[in-house]
């Protein structure tokens, strides 16, 4: 059996560097009072904030940083003392607990936001979360309401509504910063965004290689920061150039993240951040590599061709928010996305990590399993825990289920051979 994986490569280091620089910027903004804004990851419009030099704060990233460093539970408990339910999303609870503890976390000080911009892109918890942040921070709240993709394509009126709101957001940014909106600056930002998106899409596509050059679930997190948080900067665009170069080299060498790629899997759902490494090792042990994942597409579906367009900057921002991200699409669209991954990335199985916190992801995953096993005949494993709350992770149970699944899969491979 394969040993625990060691290789982390340049991508991991570069990602850490540019993300740290962002945290440093935030800590500086907290001191100097430079304008900052809270924003959500899914289908975001960070380009607009950037056009005004407003520092983007991502509460989801605060929450996941605490979880991965095993610092989330005290924050969650603090929020539960305030009245949050055991059944509420733990991302929100950890972030609120963090806020109430003064906003100094593992990555430094996070400023109190000048504005709270809720990009309501599918996730209904976003609305509550940002209401609460705005209330506790006494900051103005801008609700950027994105109509859900409930027909094959958005209507003209959906787009008009979003465009109208983007203009209203721009007016608010002008007011907060005292700067005039500069469309040419936004075009430049969109140009950098598109370059990063090209790299992202290329990297994801390289995972069609056998072996895949990186794990498109566990290693994608190194790319998710740069693409969702730093999109529109030169640093992010350069990062993706370097990442693609490294992955191309890996493919040329026939190297993957594990000594041997024995199973190609598609992973659905966010990871258990409090036990990230443990969880990963349960798969590494079987030589199982994720060749595609849905979680990595919450911010955008660039592997399907969408790019921010410097010629139509606002229109393309609207289109990304409505259409080209996972969270604003139905779970049935997600079935089709996964089916496509299984077919074109040539996967052996689907693994669903079902988390209590995020019902956007998880509600109905039993039906998803039904669809993949019964209708498509794709071996599917469903395991449960949480992305933030360590109390929902049971290592022994997780290990038993994963081992049993891969044993069966191995048997199936042998029989089929």
């Amino acid at each position, binding site marked *: 059996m394969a040993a625990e994986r060691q290789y982390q490569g340049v991508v991991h280091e570069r990602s850490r560097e540019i993300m740290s620089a962002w945290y440093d910027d935030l800590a500086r903004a907290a001191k100097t009072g430079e304008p900052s804004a809270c924003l959500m990851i899914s289908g975001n419009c960070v380009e607009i904030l950037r056009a005004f030099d407003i520092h983007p704060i991502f509460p989801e990233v605060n929450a996941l940083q605490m979880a991965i460093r095993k610092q989330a539970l005290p924050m969650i408990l603090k929020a539960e003392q*305030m*009245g*949050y*339910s055991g*059944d*509420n*999303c733990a991302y*929100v609870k950890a972030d609120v607990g963090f806020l109430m503890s003064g906003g100094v976390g593992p990555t430094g000080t996070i400023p109190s936001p000048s504005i709270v911009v809720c990009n*309501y892109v*599918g*996730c*209904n*918890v976003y*609305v*509550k979360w940002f*209401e*609460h942040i*705005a*209330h506790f921070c006494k900051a103005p*709240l801008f*609700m*950027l*309401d994105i*109509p*859900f993709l*409930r*027909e094959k394509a958005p*209507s003209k*009126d*959906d787009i*008009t*509504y979003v465009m*109208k*709101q983007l203009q*209203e957001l721009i007016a608010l940014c002008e007011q907060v910063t005292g700067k005039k909106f500069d469309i040419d600056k936004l075009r430049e930002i969109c140009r950098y965004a598109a370059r990063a998106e090209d790299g992202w899409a290329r990297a994801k596509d390289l995972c069609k290689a056998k072996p895949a050059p990186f794990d498109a679930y566990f290693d994608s997190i190194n790319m998710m920061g740069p693409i969702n948080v730093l999109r529109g900067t030169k640093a992010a665009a350069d990062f993706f150039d370097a990442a693609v170069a490294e992955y191309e080299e890996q493919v040329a060498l026939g190297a993957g993240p594990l000594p041997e790629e024995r199973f190609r899997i598609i992973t659905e759902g966010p990871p258990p951040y409090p036990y990230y490494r443990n969880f990963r090792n349960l798969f590494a042990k079987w030589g199982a590599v994720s060749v595609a994942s849905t979680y990595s597409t919450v911010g955008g579906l660039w592997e399907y061709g969408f790019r921010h367009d410097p010629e139509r900057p606002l229109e393309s921002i609207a289109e990304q928010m409505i259409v080209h991200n996972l969270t604003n699409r*139905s*779970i*049935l669209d997600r*079935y089709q996305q996964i089916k496509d991954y299984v077919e074109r990335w040539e996967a052996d199985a689907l693994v669903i990590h*079902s988390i*209590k916190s*995020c*019902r*956007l992801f*998880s*509600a*109905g*995953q*039993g*039906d998803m399993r*039904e*669809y993949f096993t019964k209708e498509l005949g794709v071996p599917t494993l469903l395991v*449960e825990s949480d992305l933030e709350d360590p109390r929902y992770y049971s290592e022994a149970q997780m290990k038993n289920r994963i081992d049993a699944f891969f044993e069966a899969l191995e048997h199936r491979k042998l029989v089929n051979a």
Partner: protein
Amino acid sequence: MLTEVLERSRGLVEDTTYRRALDWKKAGGKVVGCFPVYTPVELIHAGGMLPLGVVGGGTSVELAHADSRFQSFVCSIAKSTLELGFQGRLGLLDAILFSSICDVARNLSSVFKRNFPGVHVDYLHYPQNMSSAGVIDYMESELRRVRDNLQRVCGVEISDDRLSASILVWNRWRALIADLYALRRDEPQKISTVELYLLFRAGTLMPVEEHIPLLEASLAEFRSRTAKPRDCIRVVVEAAFCEQPPIGLIEVLEEAGCYIVDDDLLRGWRFFDTPVGEEGPPLRSLAAAYVDGSTYSSVRHDWRKKRWEGLIDRVRLSRADAVIFMPAKFCEPALFDYVLYREALEKASIPHLMVEFEEKMWTFERTRNEVETFVESMLFD
């Protein structure tokens, strides 16, 4: 007459085979399911179809299939509604409408669509940015989309004229419901919440034209009742706007010494503080009512007036002594709001009690104990 009406109402409410709607269907009518919270029932009605409240399985539906589709941490109404589908009890639906109330309801609409391809499933995205200059245009366009889909799929005509007529009918119906609520607020000894609720909910299960005369006659009878006020505290029940508590739980609250003087049970069916505009283009009127005439709600963001200010107003207007916060288990919109409601209530020195429920709960002793203690602490304070 009243006893008979209430008995018939209870029969309809407790019957998950939707008897009255089946008769309608047998007579050649079409039926459109309305999943909570708010549904623009006028659109359905204007097409000559029956809007039917589909609000889970209550106490009577055992899950045989649905809990393999939705996990243990998902609210009961999502699972029991799906189960009703698996058991064939929703076979009478030509269409069903879900809306953007929460992540579970949205995914449920998709799962429903996949498992019951014979039913037209539509998912409405209600606007959340009430301050945008584009919001009423958007809402009007969304209503038009739903209307066009219903016309196409159900083969009905929903003209502006018919829609305007439907607005008049439903305004009348909502006014009568509001009268019942006002009577209970002012003279709670004359109408219990169980009575009001049964009568109200029956209206979501039968043709509105049949229900209006029942409401009119019942109102007159309730008003003429003579009853002495009991020694009760006056409470507002908040957070039961989607999944519905068992009637037994409402009974327990009343027996334990609460006059429920306002509540948000089935709030979506009385979503507006003022009547929908009766003049002008009807889709526009419905859109404007949603944006500017709605009550505060856990499923509708409106930062112009904070939700918790709405709750405090409701307490004041109903001259309530306390709030019973009654969310369904796992209901995220309600559970999140509890935090800020609680803060506001405490600031305003309004006592409150949290009573979580599940639609199929059947023992209430613990709740009875808690509520009795709460009531006593207030009566003898």
